[in-house]
Protein backbone atom coordinates (compact mmCIF):
# COMPACT_ATOMS: atom_id res chain seq x y z
CA UNK A 1 0.00 0.00 0.00
CA UNK A 2 1.38 3.40 -1.02
CA UNK A 3 2.33 5.77 1.78
CA UNK A 4 0.83 8.99 0.41
CA UNK A 5 0.99 10.67 3.84
CA UNK A 6 4.77 10.38 3.84
CA UNK A 7 5.04 11.67 0.29
CA UNK A 8 2.76 14.61 1.10
CA UNK A 9 4.70 15.47 4.29
CA UNK A 10 7.98 15.38 2.39
CA UNK A 11 6.64 17.47 -0.46
CA UNK A 12 5.14 19.86 2.10
CA UNK A 13 8.64 20.66 3.33
CA UNK A 14 9.86 20.94 -0.28
CA UNK A 15 12.24 18.03 0.20
CA UNK A 16 13.23 15.62 -2.54
CA UNK A 17 13.53 11.89 -1.84
CA UNK A 18 17.29 12.34 -1.99
CA UNK A 19 17.17 15.16 0.61
CA UNK A 20 15.11 13.05 3.02
CA UNK A 21 17.31 10.00 2.38
CA UNK A 22 20.41 11.99 3.34
CA UNK A 23 18.70 13.36 6.46
CA UNK A 24 17.84 9.88 7.75
CA UNK A 25 20.95 8.07 6.45
CA UNK A 26 19.46 5.73 3.86
CA UNK A 27 19.52 5.50 0.07
CA UNK A 28 17.07 7.45 -2.11
CA UNK A 29 15.73 4.15 -3.42
CA UNK A 30 14.80 3.09 0.12
CA UNK A 31 12.70 6.24 0.64
CA UNK A 32 11.11 5.59 -2.76
CA UNK A 33 10.36 1.97 -1.75
CA UNK A 34 8.76 3.13 1.54
CA UNK A 35 6.58 5.68 -0.29
CA UNK A 36 5.54 3.13 -2.90
CA UNK A 37 4.74 0.57 -0.20
CA UNK A 38 7.34 -1.87 -1.55
CA UNK A 39 9.27 -1.90 1.73
CA UNK A 40 8.09 -1.88 5.34
CA UNK A 41 10.66 0.12 7.30
CA UNK A 42 11.83 -0.85 10.79
CA UNK A 43 10.56 1.20 13.72
CA UNK A 44 13.99 2.88 13.94
CA UNK A 45 13.74 4.17 10.37
CA UNK A 46 10.10 5.22 10.90
CA UNK A 47 11.18 7.29 13.93
CA UNK A 48 14.07 8.86 11.99
CA UNK A 49 11.72 9.82 9.16
CA UNK A 50 9.17 11.25 11.60
CA UNK A 51 11.85 13.34 13.34
CA UNK A 52 13.19 14.60 10.01
CA UNK A 53 9.71 15.65 8.84
CA UNK A 54 8.48 16.90 12.23
CA UNK A 55 5.57 14.44 12.31
CA UNK A 56 4.43 11.69 14.66
CA UNK A 57 4.40 7.98 13.89
CA UNK A 58 0.59 8.07 13.80
CA UNK A 59 0.56 10.93 11.34
CA UNK A 60 2.83 9.16 8.85
CA UNK A 61 2.49 5.44 9.40
CA UNK A 62 -0.83 4.63 11.07
CA UNK A 63 -3.29 2.97 8.71
CA UNK A 64 -7.01 3.06 9.58
Amino acid at each position, binding site marked *: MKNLKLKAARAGLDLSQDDLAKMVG*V*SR*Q*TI*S*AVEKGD*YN*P*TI*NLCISICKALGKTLDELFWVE
Partner: protein
Amino acid sequence: MTDASLGWIIGILVGIVLVVILLKAINKNGKAKTDYDERQQIERGKAYKYGFYTMMIACVLLLTLQIFEVDLSTLGLTTWFLPIFAGIIAQISYSIFHDAYEGLNTSMPRFVGIMTGIAVFNFAFALISFGRIGLTEGGILRPQFLNLLCGILFLIIAVELLVKKMMNNRGERDEA
Protein backbone atom coordinates in the same frame (compact mmCIF):
# COMPACT_ATOMS: atom_id res chain seq x y z
CA MET B 1 56.19 -26.47 -2.18
CA THR B 2 56.55 -25.82 -5.91
CA ASP B 3 57.14 -22.41 -7.50
CA ALA B 4 53.61 -22.51 -8.93
CA SER B 5 51.96 -23.15 -5.54
CA LEU B 6 54.10 -20.47 -3.86
CA GLY B 7 53.13 -18.03 -6.64
CA TRP B 8 49.46 -18.94 -6.13
CA ILE B 9 49.61 -18.23 -2.37
CA ILE B 10 51.47 -14.94 -2.89
CA GLY B 11 48.94 -14.02 -5.58
CA ILE B 12 46.03 -14.59 -3.17
CA LEU B 13 47.70 -12.53 -0.41
CA VAL B 14 48.49 -9.67 -2.82
CA GLY B 15 44.89 -9.91 -4.09
CA ILE B 16 43.47 -9.51 -0.56
CA VAL B 17 45.66 -6.46 0.14
CA LEU B 18 44.73 -4.98 -3.25
CA VAL B 19 41.00 -5.45 -2.59
CA VAL B 20 41.28 -3.61 0.76
CA ILE B 21 43.21 -0.73 -0.88
CA LEU B 22 40.67 -0.48 -3.74
CA LEU B 23 37.71 -0.54 -1.32
CA LYS B 24 39.28 2.31 0.66
CA ALA B 25 39.73 4.21 -2.59
CA ILE B 26 36.15 3.57 -3.75
CA ASN B 27 34.44 4.51 -0.46
CA LYS B 28 33.96 8.23 0.14
CA ASN B 29 34.92 8.05 3.84
CA GLY B 30 38.10 6.03 3.18
CA LYS B 31 36.76 2.97 5.03
CA ALA B 32 37.28 -0.52 3.62
CA LYS B 33 33.78 -1.48 4.75
CA THR B 34 30.88 -0.42 2.55
CA ASP B 35 27.81 0.81 4.46
CA TYR B 36 24.30 -0.26 3.45
CA ASP B 37 20.93 0.80 4.86
CA GLU B 38 18.45 -1.67 6.39
CA ARG B 39 16.57 -2.39 3.12
CA GLN B 40 19.81 -2.88 1.23
CA GLN B 41 21.09 -5.30 3.89
CA ILE B 42 17.93 -7.41 3.51
CA GLU B 43 18.18 -7.39 -0.30
CA ARG B 44 21.88 -8.25 -0.17
CA GLY B 45 21.05 -11.19 2.09
CA LYS B 46 18.65 -12.46 -0.60
CA ALA B 47 21.29 -11.77 -3.26
CA TYR B 48 23.85 -13.94 -1.42
CA LYS B 49 21.20 -16.66 -1.06
CA TYR B 50 20.53 -16.69 -4.83
CA GLY B 51 24.28 -16.52 -5.52
CA PHE B 52 24.79 -19.56 -3.30
CA TYR B 53 21.96 -21.50 -4.99
CA THR B 54 23.34 -20.62 -8.43
CA MET B 55 26.81 -21.80 -7.43
CA MET B 56 25.39 -25.07 -6.06
CA ILE B 57 23.35 -25.67 -9.23
CA ALA B 58 26.41 -24.95 -11.39
CA CYS B 59 28.48 -27.42 -9.29
CA VAL B 60 25.80 -30.11 -9.63
CA LEU B 61 25.62 -29.47 -13.41
CA LEU B 62 29.38 -29.92 -13.73
CA LEU B 63 29.21 -33.06 -11.58
CA THR B 64 26.36 -34.42 -13.71
CA LEU B 65 28.37 -33.79 -16.88
CA GLN B 66 31.30 -35.67 -15.38
CA ILE B 67 29.05 -38.58 -14.34
CA PHE B 68 27.78 -38.73 -17.94
CA GLU B 69 31.46 -38.85 -18.96
CA VAL B 70 31.46 -35.55 -20.82
CA ASP B 71 35.09 -34.57 -21.23
CA LEU B 72 35.67 -31.37 -19.24
CA SER B 73 39.43 -31.76 -19.01
CA THR B 74 39.92 -29.21 -21.82
CA LEU B 75 38.56 -26.50 -19.48
CA GLY B 76 41.51 -26.92 -17.10
CA LEU B 77 41.45 -24.51 -14.14
CA THR B 78 38.37 -22.81 -15.60
CA THR B 79 36.22 -25.77 -14.44
CA TRP B 80 36.72 -24.70 -10.81
CA PHE B 81 35.92 -21.08 -11.50
CA LEU B 82 32.75 -21.46 -13.63
CA PRO B 83 30.44 -22.10 -10.61
CA ILE B 84 32.12 -19.22 -8.74
CA PHE B 85 31.57 -16.85 -11.66
CA ALA B 86 27.94 -18.02 -12.00
CA GLY B 87 27.34 -17.38 -8.27
CA ILE B 88 29.00 -13.96 -8.40
CA ILE B 89 26.94 -12.90 -11.43
CA ALA B 90 23.70 -14.02 -9.72
CA GLN B 91 24.60 -12.17 -6.49
CA ILE B 92 25.67 -8.96 -8.23
CA SER B 93 22.75 -8.95 -10.69
CA TYR B 94 20.18 -9.35 -7.92
CA SER B 95 21.87 -6.61 -5.86
CA ILE B 96 22.02 -4.17 -8.78
CA PHE B 97 18.39 -4.63 -9.84
CA HIS B 98 17.17 -4.29 -6.24
CA ASP B 99 19.17 -1.10 -5.58
CA ALA B 100 21.43 -2.83 -3.08
CA TYR B 101 24.75 -2.72 -4.92
CA GLU B 102 25.72 0.91 -4.42
CA GLY B 103 26.53 1.49 -0.76
CA LEU B 104 25.73 4.66 1.17
CA ASN B 105 29.42 5.61 1.16
CA THR B 106 30.25 4.39 -2.37
CA SER B 107 31.63 6.90 -4.84
CA MET B 108 30.17 5.56 -8.10
CA PRO B 109 32.46 7.59 -10.42
CA ARG B 110 35.50 6.15 -8.58
CA PHE B 111 33.93 2.68 -8.57
CA VAL B 112 33.22 2.75 -12.30
CA GLY B 113 36.70 4.14 -13.03
CA ILE B 114 38.51 1.46 -11.00
CA MET B 115 36.32 -1.36 -12.32
CA THR B 116 36.85 -0.19 -15.91
CA GLY B 117 40.60 -0.17 -15.28
CA ILE B 118 40.51 -3.72 -13.90
CA ALA B 119 38.36 -4.91 -16.84
CA VAL B 120 40.69 -3.33 -19.41
CA PHE B 121 43.74 -4.84 -17.63
CA ASN B 122 42.16 -8.30 -17.66
CA PHE B 123 41.13 -8.09 -21.32
CA ALA B 124 44.55 -6.76 -22.35
CA PHE B 125 46.46 -9.36 -20.29
CA ALA B 126 44.34 -12.20 -21.73
CA LEU B 127 44.58 -11.03 -25.34
CA ILE B 128 48.35 -10.37 -25.16
CA SER B 129 48.86 -13.81 -23.58
CA PHE B 130 46.74 -15.52 -26.24
CA GLY B 131 48.65 -13.66 -28.95
CA ARG B 132 52.04 -14.70 -27.53
CA ILE B 133 51.50 -18.24 -26.26
CA GLY B 134 48.04 -19.23 -27.56
CA LEU B 135 44.70 -20.01 -25.93
CA THR B 136 45.50 -23.61 -25.01
CA GLU B 137 48.42 -25.74 -23.93
CA GLY B 138 48.22 -29.44 -24.79
CA GLY B 139 44.54 -29.02 -25.64
CA ILE B 140 43.74 -27.51 -22.21
CA LEU B 141 42.68 -23.90 -21.70
CA ARG B 142 45.45 -21.80 -20.19
CA PRO B 143 44.88 -20.11 -16.78
CA GLN B 144 45.00 -16.77 -18.63
CA PHE B 145 41.51 -17.64 -19.90
CA LEU B 146 40.36 -16.67 -16.38
CA ASN B 147 41.48 -13.08 -17.10
CA LEU B 148 39.15 -13.08 -20.09
CA LEU B 149 36.31 -14.36 -17.87
CA CYS B 150 37.08 -11.63 -15.29
CA GLY B 151 36.94 -9.01 -18.05
CA ILE B 152 33.57 -10.38 -19.21
CA LEU B 153 32.32 -10.36 -15.60
CA PHE B 154 33.20 -6.67 -15.20
CA LEU B 155 31.62 -5.93 -18.58
CA ILE B 156 28.37 -7.60 -17.44
CA ILE B 157 28.43 -5.52 -14.21
CA ALA B 158 28.99 -2.33 -16.23
CA VAL B 159 26.08 -3.08 -18.59
CA GLU B 160 23.77 -3.96 -15.68
CA LEU B 161 24.70 -0.76 -13.81
CA LEU B 162 24.00 1.26 -16.96
CA VAL B 163 20.61 -0.41 -17.52
CA LYS B 164 19.68 0.08 -13.84
CA LYS B 165 20.71 3.75 -13.96
CA MET B 166 18.45 4.27 -16.99
CA MET B 167 15.58 2.51 -15.19
CA ASN B 168 16.12 4.66 -12.05
CA ASN B 169 16.24 7.88 -14.12
CA ARG B 170 12.92 6.94 -15.75
CA GLY B 171 11.47 6.10 -12.32
CA GLU B 172 12.59 9.48 -10.92
CA ARG B 173 10.91 11.30 -13.84
CA ASP B 174 7.68 9.36 -13.23
CA GLU B 175 7.73 10.20 -9.50
CA ALA B 176 8.45 13.90 -10.06
